[in-house]
């Protein structure tokens, strides 16, 4: 096949491209320039798309022996991922920009362009398995598994995706990079949000959305406990950074329970009030066999899984959890998995709209 390898300049995508070449594919490497004003150098594990990353990707392509180009996707990325990120926070939700980038950039804008230019598929260095059976599964390296941020892909997108790393641990990938003479073998993993280079998400949102002071109120009593500079700076389940002047009566920590953009209010309460056991979600992408299934669901990136009964319709997904979960934020994805010894299988995903507590507290 003629395949396009998206090469970030990191170790994973370099090894993925090399494996695709070894598998006999005709591979072309492409580095996506996503930043409008790229910085020259990477700072630690943060940021991406620096000129250094572009050079690292180019040098990896040289070593692998494949052609290499840089594609300017800065406008698409800004419109589909960065603006979406800001808008979602402004709406009181908690977006996952990596998921959105896979959905709108890597397996949409890039894939569409690649197909139009005569390529058959896009290769990435994601840690997930996608075998001959067409099923998307977790990586063997559960700590590095990225199936959660790939579960948004449709059947058509998955049919044109190749993930060569799913059967390997990150440690093995690094060792292989060194064996292949790839200089990125010991490059630090990237963390955090690539377009917020200093890691200060709240500062980034404030610079985009401005300061919008509002109240922090107690979810049970309605009492005003303090103020904030913008409800967008908070995420459901957050404990730190509330800066409340009035201590809780019982002295226990309080958590963000919900964000209400209309009134610019952040509602807080004790940990148990975070618990939800029914999760509703919209925009489902469903690969599972039935409209109703018992499976496991994951409610945030790197979050734990919980058994659930999931009902899917064309427009919505409702999951009834076997035990309550905390920190369920609107805007995050709910991903359904079927446990499997060959790697848990992704049944589908949807975007969380609400969580509620149906059963009584224990």
């Amino acid at each position: 096949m003629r395949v396009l390898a998206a090469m970030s300049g990191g170790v994973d995508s370099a090894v993925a491209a090399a494996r695709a070449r070894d598998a006999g594919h005709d591979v072309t490497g492409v580095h996506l320039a996503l930043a409008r004003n790229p910085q020259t150098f990477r700072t630690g594990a943060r940021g991406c798309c620096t000129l250094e990353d572009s050079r690292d990707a180019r040098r990896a392509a040289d070593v692998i022996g494949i052609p290499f180009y840089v594609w300017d996707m800065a406008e698409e990325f800004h419109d589909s991922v960065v603006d979406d990120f800001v808008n979602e926070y402004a709406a009181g939700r908690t977006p996952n920009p990596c998921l959105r980038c896979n959905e709108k950039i890597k397996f949409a804008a890039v894939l569409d362009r690649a197909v139009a230019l005569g390529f058959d598929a896009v290769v990435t260095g994601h840690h997930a398995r996608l075998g001959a059976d067409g099923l998307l599964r977790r990586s063997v390296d559960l700590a590095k598994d990225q199936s959660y941020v790939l579960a948004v892909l449709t059947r058509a997108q998955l049919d044109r995706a190749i993930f060569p790393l799913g059967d390997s641990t990150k440690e093995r990938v690094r060792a292989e990079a060194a064996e292949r003479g790839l200089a990125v073998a010991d490059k630090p993993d990237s963390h955090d949000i690539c377009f917020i280079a200093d890691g200060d998400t709240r500062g980034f949102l404030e610079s985009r959305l401005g300061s919008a002071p509002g109240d922090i109120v107690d979810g049970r009593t309605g009492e005003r406990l303090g103020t904030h500079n913008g409800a967008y700076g908070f995420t459901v389940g957050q404990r730190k950074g509330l800066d409340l002047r009035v201590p809780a009566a019982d002295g226990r920590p309080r958590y963000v329970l919900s964000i209400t953009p209309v009134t610019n209010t952040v509602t807080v309460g004790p940990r148990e009030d975070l618990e939800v056991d029914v999760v509703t979600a919209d925009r489902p992408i469903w690969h599972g066999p039935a409209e109703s299934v018992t499976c496991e669901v994951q409610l945030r990136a790197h979050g734990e899984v919980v058994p659930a009964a999931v009902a899917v319709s064309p427009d919505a997904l409702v999951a009834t959890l076997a035990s309550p979960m905390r920190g369920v934020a609107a805007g995050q994805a709910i991903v359904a998995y079927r446990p499997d010894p060959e790697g848990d299988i992704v049944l589908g995903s949807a975007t969380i709209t609400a969580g509620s507590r149906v059963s009584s507290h224990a």
Partner: protein
Amino acid sequence: MTGGRPKLEAMAYLDHAATTPMLPAALDAYVAAARELGNPSSLHAAGRGARRLVEESRERIAAALGARPSEVIFTGGGTEADNLAVKGIFWARRDADQRLRRVVASAVEHHAVLDAVDWLGRHEGADTALQPVDAAGRVDPEAFAELVRAHGAEIAVVSVQWANNEVGTVQPVAELAALAAAAGIPFHTDAVQAVGQVPVDFAASGAAALTLTGHKVGGPVGVGALLLGRDVTCTPLLHGGGQERDVRSGTLDTPGVVAFATAVEAAVAGRDEHVSRVAALRDDLVERVCAAIPDAIYNGDPADRLPGNAHFSFPGCEGDALLLLLDAQGIYCSTGSACSAGVAQPSHVLLAMGADDPRARSSLRFSLGHDSTKADVDALLAALPGAVERARRAGAWKTPR
């Protein structure tokens, strides 16, 4: 096809405006000189031997281009020569007269000039003004005369290229230089693309300074020259041994200089034959491209342009998509200037000529040179229609989803 160095016989190299293959004579001269020992500034026999090679080269370049040997300042290439001329003449003139703070360049200059001008504006308090061009990319002498009449007493230096690197348009250099000279303003011209392609005579041009470089004329990369009139004062960029007329420091690259001179001499001596042969190939290319892709836009001046240059916009295509598709078939061309990250930017030259952003992004340059053949043009025409069709299908990717 791999990322490694491609085999020459397997490709159609249509990117001579980027760099030319070295002439065998220049390569031989380089290797022979590189075997010799000696710093041209040393006083012993070895040094004198190297110095002799350098000075002979200087004389050969001067003779080929209508300059005096003392007017040839060797540099590390075209970018350095452009920076030296623009910044050096600005500094010298402003230091002599504080009223001389204005720098004028055409809007279609190479970035080696544009960015130097921009730097002077941001760091040296220069007033910078870019002269607009017409739809063919040419500076209007009448508008330039008007500028000189209005601001001549403030202009420190003017820089207008001899011929454009992207669309190949040849500027009315002698006319512009005469207007500048009449007002006592030093006129610099970047002739990197012009030498060996059109007649270039430094003395006859009336220019105060002229840039040329080795690798566009079949010589090596990394060596070039600024022809600098003997009466033009210029403050150095590089300080050190003052090897080149105290205007440029650094040990001279003897083999590079010898190969450079060999290439310049050959390019100038063979120009008439080269022009008639390459222009005929180029005309054939243009005719066939326009026949195969009827809506292709032939950019630049249809007549008054560099003989090897063919520059098109292909509506509905992204230039970098076309480049990728042609590259995969062993056909090498260019979208214009690439930035350091390799991201294709819309050409400032096309934009200055009045093209809109999509047209600027849809452009591709084919540039022929001394080793180009009909087989190269045939190979391009065999691949281009399919590539354009495919790139058009991919063109929709920029539309909002």
